[in-house]
């Protein structure tokens, strides 16, 4: 998000999901779209069936990669080198959009200079992708009439995450592939309402509507509503976890998260949670994290409450209560309202719509929406500043949110690779998800139909590695990293490259995040490099 916000002035997806159907070139990076965003995948397959070219950069063969016209089996952690080399080719072959660069952007010279050395041959050595493939990809992308880039955690969960996002923004602006339908840059959100919670300021450095914390603007906008409030920056998630361990954080309120399983280096997370003086967990189910809490607040599910979700394409959609909440549980807004009141704050909301009306006052991009409008239009994409505004499926069409688009310099060095395999831990572990389980499985594992498909953790191992390790399909293996060890079942698969293994993180009993660490993080966003962990594997005795 930080990368895009710098370049465009807004960190959100620039285009609509439906628009992908009409794209001519679709470039997917670090996204198992087929398993994690099947509705986006459906648009990709529709476009592909129509004749659109599909390029996928992924170390694994996922269904979307299998479908691709060009599958770039990139070495894990080297996305930035690839993107810079693509831009190098585009500049060298004169495929860039000069008019767009001149009218809509700034700082082009610095970018141009920074890319001089990023030849496809240089990138081939780093990424493992042939120089010719890089050239062809660059040509395809640059010469398409509408090319779209789709990316996900395979880009962001690396040391170079923020820089790669910024480089991708550079790529779109270089070719003028932004601001028009069916083009742009689509970061796919991992949850139904990640975009909405970011919009509402659930970020360490911003308040609702992306107003920077600690500024006069923040004071001016929110003080009239809230009175005195903590107008300061917060900590990033990885810093919070470290703070629990070092004692600088002594109480926590966790809502709808399961850090005991979802955050890297589970042992230290557990240590941190264990040290807290006071832990409140608000969730649908008694998750591993909730089991550690002093107070558990049972929350209602999406079917049992009213409100809005804002999805990956900035579409604000109605959620309606179709079932009464399970006895003893309450909607999140009710829990929060009462907590605010109990703490002496003001929260005079009688229904979710009251809260939405307040959002409209302080978040200009929501100002023109209302429950009635959202329901009638089946969702509205922000910005929607006035009641007669139709919403904005395509961002930045005449100017960028920040005015001119900013080209940034994003240098790749070999130090950025994160944890590398070594003699003791010879395999590189990629963590990810399976289509039938969601996140830490606290919900999907309660559904027999979903859980039956993937009832336990498995480790994808290349046949060559399996041979060397003397392990066979369905055997149990022990996986060790510098942080800890777990067991999982082996699935022999050519979807991973030799030397690389894949493990989903849905399973509490084989928690992948026991193995991962946060020693390597993105320096800007603080996101840990979850896609790269060095591990050793052996048959479980």
């Amino acid at each position, binding site marked *: 998000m930080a990368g895009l916000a710098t370049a465009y002035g807004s960190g959100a997806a620039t285009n609509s999901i439906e628009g992908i159907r009409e794209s001519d070139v679709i470039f997917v990076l670090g996204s198992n779209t087929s398993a994690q965003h099947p509705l986006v995948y459906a648009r990709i397959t529709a476009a592909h069936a129509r004749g659109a070219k599909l390029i996928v950069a992924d170390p694994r063969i996922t269904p979307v990669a299998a479908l691709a016209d060009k599958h770039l089996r990139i070495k894990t952690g080297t996305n930035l080198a690839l993107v810079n080399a693509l831009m190098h080719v585009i500049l060298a072959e004169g495929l860039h959009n000069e008019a767009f660069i001149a009218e809509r952007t700034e700082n082009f010279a610095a970018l141009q200079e920074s890319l001089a050395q990023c030849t496809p041959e240089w990138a081939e050595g780093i990424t493992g992708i042939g120089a010719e493939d890089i050239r062809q990809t660059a040509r395809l992308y640059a010469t398409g009439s509408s090319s779209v880039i789709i990316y996900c955690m395979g880009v962001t969960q690396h040391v170079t995450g923020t820089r790669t996002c910024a480089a991708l923004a550079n790529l779109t602006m270089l070719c003028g592939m932004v601001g028009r339908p069916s083009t742009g840059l689509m970061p796919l959100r991992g949850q139904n309402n990640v975009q909405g919670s970011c919009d509402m300021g659930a970020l360490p450095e911003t308040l609702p509507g992306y107003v920077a914390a600690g500024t006069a603007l923040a004071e001016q906008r929110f003080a009239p509503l809230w009175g005195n409030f903590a107008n300061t920056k917060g900590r990033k998630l990885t810093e919070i976890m470290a703070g629990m361990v070092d004692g600088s954080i002594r109480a926590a309120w966790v809502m709808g998260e399961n850090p005991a399983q979802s955050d890297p280096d589970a042992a230290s997370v557990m240590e941190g949670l264990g040290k807290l003086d006071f832990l409140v967990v608000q969730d649908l189910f008694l998750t591993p994290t909730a089991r550690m809490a002093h107070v558990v607040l049972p929350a209602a599910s999406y079917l049992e409450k009213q409100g809005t979700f804002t999805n990956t394409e900035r579409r604000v959609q109605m959620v309606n209560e179709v079932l009464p909440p399970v006895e003893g549980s309450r909607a999140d807004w009710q829990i929060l309202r009462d907590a605010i009141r109990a703490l002496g704050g003001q929260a005079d909301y009688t229904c979710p719509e009251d809260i939405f009306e307040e959002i409209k006052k302080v978040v200009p991009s929501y100002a023109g929406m209302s429950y009635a409008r959202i329901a009638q239009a089946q969702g509205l994409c922000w910005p929607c500043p006035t009641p007669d505004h139709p919403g904005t499926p395509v961002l930045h069409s005449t100017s960028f949110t920040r005015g001119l688009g900013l080209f940034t310099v994003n240098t790749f060095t070999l130090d950025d690779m994160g944890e590398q395999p070594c003699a003791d831990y010879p395999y590189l572990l990629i963590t990810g998800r399976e289509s039938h389980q969601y996140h830490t499985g606290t919900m999907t594992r309660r559904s027999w139909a979903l859980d039956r498909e993937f009832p336990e953790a498995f480790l994808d191992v290349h046949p060559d590695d399996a041979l060397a390790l003397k392990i066979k399909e*369905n055997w149990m293996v022990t996986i060790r990293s510098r942080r800890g060890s777990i067991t999982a*079942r082996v699935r022999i698969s050519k979807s991973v490259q030799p030397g690389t293994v894949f493990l989903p993180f849905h399973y509490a009993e084989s928690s992948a995040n026991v193995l991962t660490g946060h020693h390597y993080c993105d320096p800007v966003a603080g996101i840990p490099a979850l896609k790269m962990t060095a591990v050793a594997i052996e048959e479980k005795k």
Partner: protein
Amino acid sequence: MFKFRASDLPQILSLWSSRYAVFVPSGTPDNVQLRLWRQSKQEGERLIESDEYINLAMSPKSFVFSERESLFRWESNEKLCEAISDPFPDASHDGDKILFGVRPCDCYGLGYMDRFFLGEHHDINYHMRRQHVFVVAVNCLQAGKGCFCHSMGTGPFAAITQHNAFGTTAGKGYDLLLTPDYAPEHVAGKNTENDWYWVEAGSDRGKALLSQVAHMLFRDLEFTGLERKEALLRHSRSTFSHSLEAARQPELLARMLSAHYNDPCWDTLAERCIDCTGCTRVCPTCTCFTTEEEKDSEHSGMRVRVWDSCQSRGFTRNAGWHNPRSKTASLRYRIFDKLQYIEERFGMKGCVGCGRCFTVCPAAINFVDVINDMAQRMPVAEVMQNVPHRDVHYERDERLFDPQLYTPLVAEIIDIHEEARNINRYTVRYRDRPNQGRPALRGQFFMLTVFGVGEVAISVPFSDRVKDGFTFYVKKAGKVTSAMHKLKVGDMMGLRGPFGVPLPYDSLIGRDLLVVGSGVGHAPVRATLVRAIENKQHFGRIAIMASATSYDGLILKDDLKEWAQIDGVEVHYCLSKPTDAVQAHVGYINDLLPGLGLDWGKTSAIVCASARRIKAVARDLMQLGMKPADIYTALETNMHCGVGKCGHCKVGGHYMCVDGPVFTYEEMMQLPPEF
């Protein structure tokens, strides 16, 4: 033939709605659902009055085959345990329903479901729902984007000559058939005086529906109806953009599919598939289900059945994580089933040409394109000359209407004996009725229920004349068998069966007999073996090969010792680990076969082991001179319902639970290699 004015339709629906719950196509043209019709018109319902929809988004199968329904309830306390058959517990039955506006393709689908559920092993739950559903079909004047029913012969007009002896209600899948006949000046959404519907009754129930609205009907006095219909059909046929020409010749299609069984295209498609199972949910002929146990408490609960899909990975996977169908095989299976297996077995089309499966597919997997591409690659002449036609014969097991079809009888455990490591022998007795009161014990396996946990198929090891108590050998492997191992003498379990074709006896008489069993493999042969040994004088030599990893893992240890004493019966042990208990060969069964010196031309063999071992043993036996038709096997696949309904054990066109599990090796090799 009759006709009525299109403008009278609301009045007709209104009349019907006083006696039936009338469901009509509602919603928006791209998402048409069957919803309850009401007098006060609601938004979207306009769709039906002007025939403005192409087809329903979902097939109407859920009206007759519920997505989720209870099969039986059970209750227990310390002394009692009861299983109560209850096919209508969820009170969803709210009287007779009329489904108005169902398209011909879906009528065919209903016709097929009637054949499937109401044929052999008559399904009581389906029956109960089906008898309350009346179908008023409307022929299509306009094909949709994915439609190809004209190639399948299932549309765009419903057939009026198709007969189906099995339907208790609408043999054709409809009770009334309407054909819209709009005047040239017809405007969508507005009916003129000259817009008509032609009406034909498809059943007596349909005639009854007509009599209720007789005053609005006009007789076809000029006898122009059939002529008009013919013209409308010609027009309708011209509106298709998709076709599957190969389907017009089922034999050709079957041969072409056989020739492409190992085509790389299945792998390519499987790589893109994301196992969402959307294709099977929307399919009008998909009937597979699984069962789940829902507990109210420790002492009561019910077994529910829920739609299942052969496209999910868990569908064929068994307790030991072995999955006989790879992802490629699953994907191919669905397409072969729809285009070949169903038609071979039931004589009806397995695909109705609605195109829903590829319209909803997020991976854009379109089997019509795949088959058309295949047909292009392999011209008709080549297929007919070079690909042999597989003539499949199915024995039909006609059983009486059995209200206990899915409800187990309660039986009490009267003895538990630890037979081998993780293998127990259970002796059970029906609690309410003596064993001899049951119909003939002809079958190869029973379905054993641990109440509240689930059900498994267990072979019959006792002879058909057993008087008191059945015995079962159960190896601890999955959820249900593990739970069974926790039961004690005096506890109750549920029994359904026996099911399946048993091992032969009469055809073995007068021959040498070789019995090969590996692990628990002796359990299914025991019944035949006991009988043969009792009548030893009718047989030549009887050789028994007992194989296991270790002696400890072998069942029937006492039986084997006893049999070895009988003149003309020999027992050979083949173990991976040596033992002191008996004299055993350390190695494979195959090592011992040549040395047996049986009269191979006059020998029958029964081989019970894993599919891989069966093949290895059979190959050697044939080299020794045996005919594949004299080698019998029992293929234990993932059987759930036991009566050819749930679909889990289907291999090719065969339901292993009703056509098998006993097959000769010759028959086994004709099955697709997916068991």
